Each structure stands twice: as C-alpha cells, then as structure tokens.
C-alpha cells in the first residue's frame, strides 16, 4: 500500500465515521434518513485497498447504530446462508453493501469482537463457512454468464470478491476445504485451456494442508492428488526439490527410473489435466540428452497418438523445443491430446505447423503476446503453445471476462472441425495484423473495421483468443451491420458466412424479432426434434458442430441474456436418457439455469469440455438453431405432443413467460 492509499483510506474512514455518528445519534424513527448515506460511505470505503478491514473494525458499531434496522438483516439469527449469493449477484447496489456489512458483522460475532443476542459465536462461524462454501466462484474468481451480463456491477463485484477474500482469510479454509477440492475437480474435468486460477487455489490448499494432521481421509486424498500433480507427481520430484536439483537427479538415475518418471508424469497429467513444471523440465531434458524415445511415454500416448508421433517425430520435437518451457508446460497436455486426435494426418496440418515454427510475428502481435503473457518465452512460443492447446482441447477455450462468446465459439469450432483454416487465420493475423473474410461476396478487412462488442484486446484469455478475438469481433459486428436491417435475426446469415459452409443454411428461431414475442414455438421444437433427436430424425448423428442460440436463465429461472453455444452431438447417456452435448464458450459450463435445469459437465457421458442436458431441458432454453433440409424432411411427425407441451411449459416458466403472444395468452386462459 502506498502512502497515498493510506491517506485515502483514512479520509474515507473519517467520512464514514461522521455519517456513522449521525446514525448513532439519530432517534430510532429518524435512522432511516441516515442509512443511505452510511451505506454509500461504506461502499466507497469498501472499494479502497484495505477498506474491507477498516469496515470490519466498524462492523459492530454499524450494527449497534442501527444500519440493519427495519430490514431482514436486523435479525441475523434468522438469515439463510443460501440466500446470500443471490443477493450479492442480483441485489441493488445498496442491498449488496448491506449484505457485505452483514457478513462482516457475522465475522465480528464469530471472532468475539461483537455480540448479537440470539447469535452465538459458533453459529456465526458456521453461517460464514456455509456462505463461503456456497460462493466458491467468488473465491475462484471465475465469473458466470449471469454476473458478466450485469456489466455495470463489475466494480461492485470486485468489491464483493475482496470481502470474500477477507472472510476466507479470517475464517480459514478448514471447513470449506472439502467443498473446494470437489469444485476444483469439477472444473478440471472440463479440461479448460486456462488453469491459472485453479493452480492458484491448489497452492492455497497446499499451504493450508502443509504439516496439517487434522484433515484426513477422502478429502486429503483428493487434495494430495492435486497438489502432487503440480508439485511432485513422480518419484524423483516428489519432495519438490526445484528444477535444478531435479535435473541433476535425472543425470544420476538409470533408464528404468527415467521410464518411471515418464509414465508417472503422464499419469498425473491425464488424471488431473494439470502439468507440473517438473514435467516440462523432464521433457526438455529428454531432448537435450537425446532420450526422445521416452517422449511418447511422457505424453502418455495411446496407440493412435503413438502412431502419429512416429510419423511426425521431427515435427513434434521441433514443437517441443520451440514451445515447451516452464511457462508453457501445460501445453504438453495439448500436444498429447492433439496427437490423439490424429489430425496430423490431414495433409495441410503438418505444413501449417512448420510454418508456425518459423513465422516472424508482427511487432503488434509480439507486443500483444508480451502484454498478455509476459516475456518468459518469445511471442512466437506463446502463440504456438496456445495453438497446440486449442487443437488438443477444442472445447477448452473460454471467453474470459469478455462479451465475445461468438468469437470463442468460432475458434472452438474451427479447432474441432477446420483446423487448417484456424492455422491460416492465426498466420494471417500474426503476420499482417488483419483478418480478411467475405460476407455474401463482399470483402471484410478487420484492419479497416470499427470496434465490435469489445473495444479492448481481451488479455484474460488464451493466446489464440488474445490474437484473433479483436479481429473476429470486428468482423462479426460488421456482418451484423450489413444484415441488421433485414427484419430477421442476423445470425441467419452471419453464422454460415462467419464459420464455414458446414453451418446449415436452414435457420430456425423461436422468437419474433420485431416484437420479441414467441412465434410458433411448438413447430420450432418439433423441427428441432426432427433434426437433432436420433429417435425422430432417422438416427442421424450431428456431423459438424452447429451454432445454436440459448436463452440463458439464472438459478431462479429468470432470463439473463442470449448466448452463443454449439451443438456437438445428441446421444443416449448411460442411463438411457437422450442428451444434447454442447459446447458453451463460457469459462465454466456447469451452470444452474433454474427450475431443475442444471447443466452437467461430467458423469453423464460428457467428453472433455462438453456440457450436457437431457434433450427436453436443453430444448426448453433453445431459441435459435440451424439444420439441414436434407435431414429434416418429413420426419419428426412422431414427436409426442405431450413432450413438446412439457418443453414449452418449461420455457414459459422461465425465459418465455413474458414473451407469450397475446392470442396465445388468451387461449391459455
């Protein structure tokens, strides 16, 4: 904290104290007229560095002065931990601050610094533990669609995060550790490209568990696996000795020990999705000491991956030399998964990779890479590593904290379906700072277009996104401008033109664009079944990933906004339930969309990065899809009317409730 911050905070604290004194002095009936100013002062103090602690010191006084008077927070013993999260997400600004003050008051009670009748200290402690465990995303720093949409609340959101960090620090991670570890596993099972925040949490857990004998059993096991995957997954690295000493141990071990190291690293990597720094050091050491025969073991390749490796060994070794460094070790996972996909056999891929290995990126590209990722590696190495990651885990990409779901979805689709085109785009932008696409025959050049949905380069995403999203976003926005006046949803034309020929040209939307009201919803749903439901479409699989639009709802089922996803496939899960497996460019697909619609990310047949819902639940939030006239002809007649009716009811109960056209509403009555 600089001295000016220190000045700041005392000045803000003094102002709060004045308002607080007014509130304290006021007669009970007049307190209401001073509350809003105290809350506003508290908000401003809270937003300063160190403000949370300053407010905590005053939590008891604020309570006694009557800040909670006349509200539900006035009887803390009756408050419910599960309501706190929603208040902090959806409440008015003043309500959010009041909730923060209430949490700090609970902390003061838990710590014995304040007392409230009917609220013993251990009950306050228990309350906070539950609140922390129920709001892990505050601690993880991963934001959901719903919280991002409320962009105006970003600042206040950060303030709330700071309050949670403070609570966590004071309450300790002990009680919430088990929940935290489950959460980490849940996120890792989606194999996100970005694991920085997960690693951060594991470090925190490691610190807590260090020399701790209290925690045992299952929870300890889960935590140990995560910690060891990062800090010592193998025999020689198990005591986290540091890379230098580790290398010297390798120099003094025999080949059997080296093989054990290789398989140990591979197992940890595929088990958790995390790559240890020692793993990167080990692979580099293998190349330096000419033991490249162990690389397939270190990557944990199956026969498919191994075959690819053998066919393209010089290329893979060149990639490792260029792109695998301590700062990019995670790319070993991407490399292994890319080999497993067998995409190297597609003729343009290997030459595209060779081009990337020698590309001289533009000054602007270099500056952007350095700004986002630092200078531990060359800009080209970061870019290549990012590209390998994306090709290995096409569904691991996330939009970061940016309103660019369209762009993230496009990148994932190309990585999955059109990788050589992705190479082309990356090379083009990396070399010349421009992306060129065509829209209905007209040329669009991103270098000449105005900003799209976001005017800033997103720095909180993966290297490929950092490079391409500003350009893609501009082109997407321009396409929207060119067909915005056609009186229909522009995605009808944008989606095929932006992504590729394989996006079907037949377009279906459940909402009348002019009025925002539902339009032929039953027919829309029947058609969706006829196109995508294997039992009604002649058992046709989804061939290419197809863009679709979702009406995202929050955990209360309230409409949040329109969101771009892609449908990957529809299939029966292990329990015989037909599910839609889809990709959500959001950073964490496991979301609660309300009324029992909880998106699953593992355990129901999902592959890495896929989200899934039972077919009907998915359809209940769907508002746009594309299909192919070839597959949907004459079929779907067999979809039972009750099933369509049930889905329509689910939509009505959530996002479509106030979008019912008048005549339909009249019929319903």
């Amino acid at each position: 904290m600089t001295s000016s911050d220190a000045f700041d905070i005392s000045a803000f604290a003094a102002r709060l104290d004045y308002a607080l004194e007014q509130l304290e002095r006021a007669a009970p009936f007049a307190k209401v007229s001073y509350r809003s100013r105290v809350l506003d002062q508290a908000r401003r103090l809270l937003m300063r560095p160190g403000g949370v602690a300053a407010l905590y010191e005053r939590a008891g006084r604020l309570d006694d002065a009557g800040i909670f008077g006349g509200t539900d927070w006035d009887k803390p013993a009756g408050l419910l931990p599960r309501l706190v999260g929603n208040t902090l997400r959806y409440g008015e600004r003043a309500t959010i601050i009041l909730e923060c003050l209430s949490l700090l008051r609970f902390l003061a009670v838990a710590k014995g610094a304040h007392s409230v009748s009917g609220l013993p200290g251990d009950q306050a402690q228990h309350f906070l533990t539950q609140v922390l465990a129920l709001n892990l995303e505050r601690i993880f720093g991963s934001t959901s669609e719903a919280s991002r949409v409320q962009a105006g609340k970003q600042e206040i959101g950060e303030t709330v995060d700071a309050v949670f960090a403070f609570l966590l620090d004071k309450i300790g991670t002990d009680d919430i550790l088990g929940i935290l570890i489950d959460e980490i596993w849940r996120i890792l099972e989606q194999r996100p490209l970005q694991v920085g925040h997960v690693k951060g949490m594991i470090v925190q857990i490691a610190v807590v568990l260090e020399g701790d004998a209290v925690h045992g059993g299952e929870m300890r096991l889960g935590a140990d696996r995560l910690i060891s995957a990062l800090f010592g997954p193998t025999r020689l690295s198990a005591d986290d000795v540091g890379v230098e000493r580790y290398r010297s141990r390798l120099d003094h071990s025999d080949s059997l020990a080296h093989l054990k190291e290789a398989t140990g690293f591979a197992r940890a990597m595929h088990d958790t999705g995390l790559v240890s720094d020692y793993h990167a050091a080990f692979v580099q050491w293998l190349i330096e000491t000419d033991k490249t025969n162990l690389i397939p073991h270190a990557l944990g390749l199956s026969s498919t991956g191994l075959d690819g490796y053998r066919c393209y060994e010089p290329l893979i070794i060149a990639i490792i030399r260029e792109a695998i460094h301590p700062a990019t070790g995670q790319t070993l996972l991407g490399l292994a998964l890319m080999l497993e996909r067998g995409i190297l056999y597609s003729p343009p891929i290997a030459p595209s990779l060779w081009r990337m290995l020698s590309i001289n990126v533009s000054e602007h590209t270099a500056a952007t890479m350095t700004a986002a990722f630092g200078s531990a590696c060359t800009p080209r190495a970061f870019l290549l590593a990012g590209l390998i990651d994306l090709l290995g885990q096409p569904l691991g990409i996330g939009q970061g904290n940016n309103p660019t779901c369209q762009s993230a979805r496009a990148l994932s689709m190309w990585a999955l379906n059109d990788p050589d085109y992705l190479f082309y785009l990356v090379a083009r932008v990396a070399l010349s700072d421009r992306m060129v696409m065509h829209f209905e025959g007209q040329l669009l050049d991103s270098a000449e277009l105005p900003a799209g949905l976001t005017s800033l380069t997103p720095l909180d995403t993966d290297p490929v996104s950092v490079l391409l999203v500003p350009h893609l976003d501009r082109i997407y926005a321009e396409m929207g401008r060119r067909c915005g006046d056609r009186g229909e949803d522009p995605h009808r034309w944008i989606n095929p033109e932006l992504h590729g020929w394989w996006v079907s040209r037949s377009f279906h939307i459940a909402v009348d664009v002019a009025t925002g009201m539902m339009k032929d919803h039953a027919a829309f749903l029947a058609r969706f079944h006829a196109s995508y439901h294997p039992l009604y479409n002649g058992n046709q699989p989804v061939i290419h990933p197809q863009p679709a639009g979702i009406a995202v709802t929050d955990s209360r089922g309230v409409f949040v906004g329109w969101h771009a996803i892609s449908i990957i496939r529809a299939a029966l899960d292990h329990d015989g339930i037909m599910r839609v497996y889809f990709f959500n460019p959001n950073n964490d697909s496991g979301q609660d969309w309300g009324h029992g619609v909880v998106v699953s990310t593992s355990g129901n047949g999902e592959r890495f990065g896929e989200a899934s819902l039972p077919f009907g639940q998915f359809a209940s939030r769907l508002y746009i899809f594309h299909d192919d006239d070839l597959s949907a002809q004459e079929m779907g007649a067999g979809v039972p009317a009750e099933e369509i009716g049930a889905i329509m009811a689910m939509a009505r109960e959530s996002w479509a409730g106030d979008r019912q056209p008048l005549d339909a509403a009249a019929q319903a009555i």
Partner: protein
Amino acid sequence: MAEKNPDKGYVAVLGWSLRAIDAMARFDRRYVIVAPEWAESYAKEHDIPFISWNFERLNDRSHEIAQTLKDMGVDVAIPLFEETVEWAGAINSVLLNNPRLLGQSMLFRDKSLMKRRAQLGGIRVGIFEEAMDKSDVIRFLKRVNQTLLKLEGDVNDPIHMKAFDKAGCLGHRVIRTADDVDAISDDEFPALLESHLDGWEFAVEAWIKDRKIQFLNISEYVTLGYSVFVPATPELEKWRGRITEQIEKLIDVFDIDFGFIHPEYFVTNDGTLYFGEVAYRPPGFNAFELMERAYGFNAYQALVLAFDPKTTQEEMDAFFPEPVKGASGHAGCFGVYPRRRVVSDLDIPEETEDHPYFEFHELAPPMEQKVTKRTAFGTHWGLVYFFGEDPHEMRELLKRQEELDFYV
C-alpha cells in the same frame, strides 16, 4: 430520548420533517409535531407527540388549532415550510397575544408585498413588477432591455420570473426571449418579475432573538439552483459587516422580534447589496445539514432556541460557535439534473466519486427513462454532498459538477 426541561418552552413544529423531529427528540424542549394526517400512524408507531392538521389556506378553523395548542400549554409555533409560515403567524399571534405577527407572516408569504415593504424601508432592491399575464412579461422584458440601451437584435439581458408564494427556486424561470415567455403556462400567474443583476448571489441564514442577530451564516451560491456551500469564501465573507447591517435593517423594517430568516441578496461588483427576497423558515437545499457538517451545531435545535420565549441569552451564546472560524471545513451540495433527454441508469462520475471532498449522494435511480424538459428551477433529482478544507476548491468542484452526467 433527551430529558425534557419543564422550565423551558414548549414548541409546536408545523410540518413533517424526520430530521427536524429527530433534532427535537434529542433536545431538552418539549415539542409537538403538527402535520397532515398521512403522518399520523408513523408518529403513533414511534411515540412522536403529534397533532393531525391539514395546512390548506388559512380559514375559520385556524383559530381552532391555535386554541388547541394554547390549551396544551404550547408557547410558540415554528414553521418548517413555506406553506406553514402564515399558519405559524396566525397561531403565534394567539399564543403570544401579538396580532401583528399574522400580518408580518403575510408579508413573508408574498414576494411582491415583501419587496415593496423592503423598498419602503430604504432597502435597495432591483427593478420589479407584478405580472398578471404573458403580455406583462413581454413588456417588462422590453422595458428592462431598453433601459439598458440595447438595440433591436442585441441579445437581451434576462429577467427573472418567480411565483409569489412558492419556496426557493420552485417556479423560478429565467426569461430571455419571447419564446421563453410563450412557454409559460397561464396558471403560473400572477407572478413577480425582476431585472437580472450581474453579480454574486448568496443567501443568509440568521437566527434572531430579542431583535438581535444571534448567529449569521452566509451561504455562497456557486450557480443558482445548482449548488451552495457554507461558510462562504473569504471574498464574500469580507462583506460580512455590510451584510450584518442589511440584516439589521430587515429586522427593523419587518419588525422581527425573534425567529429565523433566510434572505437572498446580490452583491454587485461595486459592492452594492441588493435585497432579493426573504423567507421565515429553514432554507431548501438542505442548508441546515451543511451548517451542521461545517459548524457541528444542529440548526433545528437552534431554531427552537430562537423561537422559544424562555430561552436565555446565555443559552444562545453557549450554543452558537464563532462564525467562519468555528467551522471545521466547508460543506457544499450540488443538485443534480439529468443532462440527457433519455436516461437509464444512475452513474456517479468517476472524477466526482474519486474527489477527496465527495461525501455521499442522495440520488435515486431513474424511475422514468424520458427526462421531462426543464422549464423552471427547483426540480433537481437529488443532492450530492461535499466537504473539504478549501473554499475555492469547493467552489471549483461544485461548478465542475454542472458539466458531468450523473444519469446516463
């Protein structure tokens, strides 16, 4: 709350204000609130001494409320709002057995009569006239500008139009052109017209007891209808002597024995003071709040002291701090008007939020997206409060707020 002193006065407060009632509850005077019946249940619920009364125009029943208060042993009535000033006058003429007080309060309620009385008493006022309809306004605008030797086509000097009997800036219009006159609706007449004076406008708050000024505050306006702060800058405070003389003149001319007045003045570049108007009640724009912030005394309690016939001079002397020097800083506030035609959100500008003088705001999120076109002063959407050491910085800061959007 506070222990009540039976040897001191018993006051009736006319009008409902939580801040005022709070001040009463924490003061040693017995009190009763006289306010419209919509406040009755709240008062009952919180044990606030209360009499329900509807303040419409004075009528036959006005004697009834005076008698009720007299029977209760109330010593004096204190008006909080413009609409209760003549009621206080009527009631006090009964309670204090002084019929002159009713006539005096009528003077305070009519801006035109008030100006004539001031003029008769030798107080300098600007050019003014009563207007019954739009043609009077046009004539006044033309005549004022002819006097100023303006030619046809020159930009007019503005004139001001004010409702006779409304508080502060309510119904106050600035008129420059015939188009402005056209925008006036007929129900705003009759009204008072005044020439515009180029100079420094400010207000005074004076607590009076035994025809003597007990405390005099100067509130500096940065821009009329937008912002005010206390205490004033040294440049304005240097006129304090002259201003005190003027207030003493007012006390003589209006025959004020006790109470509280809130006059407005202009001081022109050559130091001439022009009287604008005077009110016999607490000022708008929460000036009482600003005084409490700057000086630390509760201005409502000061009001009670000034009205209570049983207050002693010693009590007065102990209550008030020394003007200007007794202030811990300068407190100001700014009235926010939306600057855009369509607004959807309340968004405190970053530079305001980050300024060390900024305290808090009392702005509500917009209820409607369309902003009605502003024709008169006095309909701000809420106040933003500041407090700091340097009066010049305060003035700049308040001025700067006029260029910022609080509603976007």
